[in-house]
């Protein structure tokens, strides 16, 4: 029924449509754009030091997950990011029925869908975060996360091997923990002073480790690089010098 000339015409029409309806178009004609997504499915590039960052990387812990990406295709307002977690996680991802995210989100099975209320330009780094996902129950690497940017029923960009996460063993517990105002410091409101963080570890800590003191109280003032040093407890003191850095409301302590 279709002779060569009709085929050629159809092909030219198809190519013309492909070129005309670029994926940056707002997709008002679903059928055509659906057809055309097979022309131009963009690539979703991972971005940053950690493409996927879990706030706690131990098994069976609840962690906040951040996805850092650069879309190749503009995501219009109302579009979103779909993340399919690998099978090592549990279905439903351990979140409550109303998950908390940096932008509106829904969770179904292993899939999270974020919705962006403002457009994200092509080539511009963006991120989305979902809180309190239940980490897998066993340590080791996970499978790949699959990420797609979407608009309505259409997929704009995708990356099916976005990143993997290393899951570590169970967390141990610190004992004899205490935070107190340093004996040489003052307790009066508004004054600069020193707090001492004391603790006992439950396991042998390998040499390449760091400490994190989380200061939940917003009213405690922190400077970017506060001075910090070891404090003798029962005559025992950690050898060496330390330096401290603030990250959000956490003090990160590393040995020099």
């Amino acid at each position, binding site marked *: 029924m279709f002779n060569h000339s009709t085929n050629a015409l159809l092909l030219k029409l198809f190519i013309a449509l492909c070129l005309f309806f670029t994926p940056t178009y707002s997709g008002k004609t679903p059928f055509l754009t659906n057809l055309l997504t097979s022309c131009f499915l963009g690539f979703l590039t991972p971005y940053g030091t950690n493409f996927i960052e879990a706030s706690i990387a131990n098994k069976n812990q609840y962690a906040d997950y951040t996805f850092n990406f650069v879309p190749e295709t503009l995501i219009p307002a109302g579009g979103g990011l779909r993340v399919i977690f690998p099978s090592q996680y549990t279905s439903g991802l351990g979140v409550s029925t109303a998950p908390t995210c940096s932008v509106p989100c829904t969770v179904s099975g292993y899939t999270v869908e974020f919705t962006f209320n403002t457009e994200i330009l092509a080539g511009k780094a963006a991120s989305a975060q979902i809180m309190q996902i239940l980490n897998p129950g066993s340590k080791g690497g996970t499978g790949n996360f699959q990420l797609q940017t979407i608009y309505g029923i259409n997929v704009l960009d995708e990356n099916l091997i976005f990143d993997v996460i290393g899951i570590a063993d169970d967390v141990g517990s610190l004992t004899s923990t205490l935070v107190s105002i340093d004996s040489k410091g003052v307790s009066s*409101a508004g004054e600069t002073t*020193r707090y001492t963080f004391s*603790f006992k570890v439950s396991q042998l800590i390998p040499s390449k*480790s760091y400490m994190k*003191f989380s200061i939940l109280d917003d009213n405690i003032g922190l400077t970017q690089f506060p001075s910090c040093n070891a404090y003798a407890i029962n005559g025992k003191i*950690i050898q060496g010098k330390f330096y401290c850095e603030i990250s959000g409301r956490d003090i990160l302590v590393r040995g020099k």
Partner: protein
Amino acid sequence: MGISVAVINPPFSGTTSSFTIAVLREGTNVIYDVKSSIPGVKITAGVPTDVSLTKADPDAIQSRNKMMDYILDFKLRNPLGENSVISFEFPPSFLIDTSAAKLRYIRYGLEDPSEDSVAVITVDTKNVLRITNFAPFTDPQMMSLHLRLVNPDNIGETTPANVRTYLDSLETILVDEDVTNAYTVIEDISKLLHMSIITFSSFTCDSQDHHSFRDSQCPSSDIGVPSHPNRYNSR
């Protein structure tokens, strides 16, 4: 083990929120050990400076029971906001004048919140003066009040007034406190008169002339009083 870190205490008293300590593997968010909900630390009230209570008129004598005007100066340590309260609790012996002629005003240091609203000074039945509805500030400056008080019936140092600031109108969050420096010294007047009598150098006895005085040589009926007692400044 312990690590001591420099921080700045919150700008009001109370117990801080809790802390979490974790030990992690370098370069990762893998936790080795952790402890959360470590109880917060207790913060005490901030310390105002330059607190003083001095007489408004440098030449006035601070005698017992005299109603007179004072200047109360203070420099707070921490910021105060919209619903904050600055309170001065004077001892019952040192009454704040609440008669019709009561005189008290902010000399400087505290501003009205707007053109249509003025700072409010009230005195309650417990002899507590409160300033409210002032413009919030983040960097406290020297503040000064003019107050009319009735001196106590006792000579010597007065019991200090308790200077306290609160973040909230219900006075549950104490910010700064001074309970030692808002005091003054009531002078012993009888000593003043005695001193001035002794400064007379010459005297005769005269039963009619009451301008002279002498202790032992005059008959007891001739008792004079100095007509111009030298005023002795107790400073």
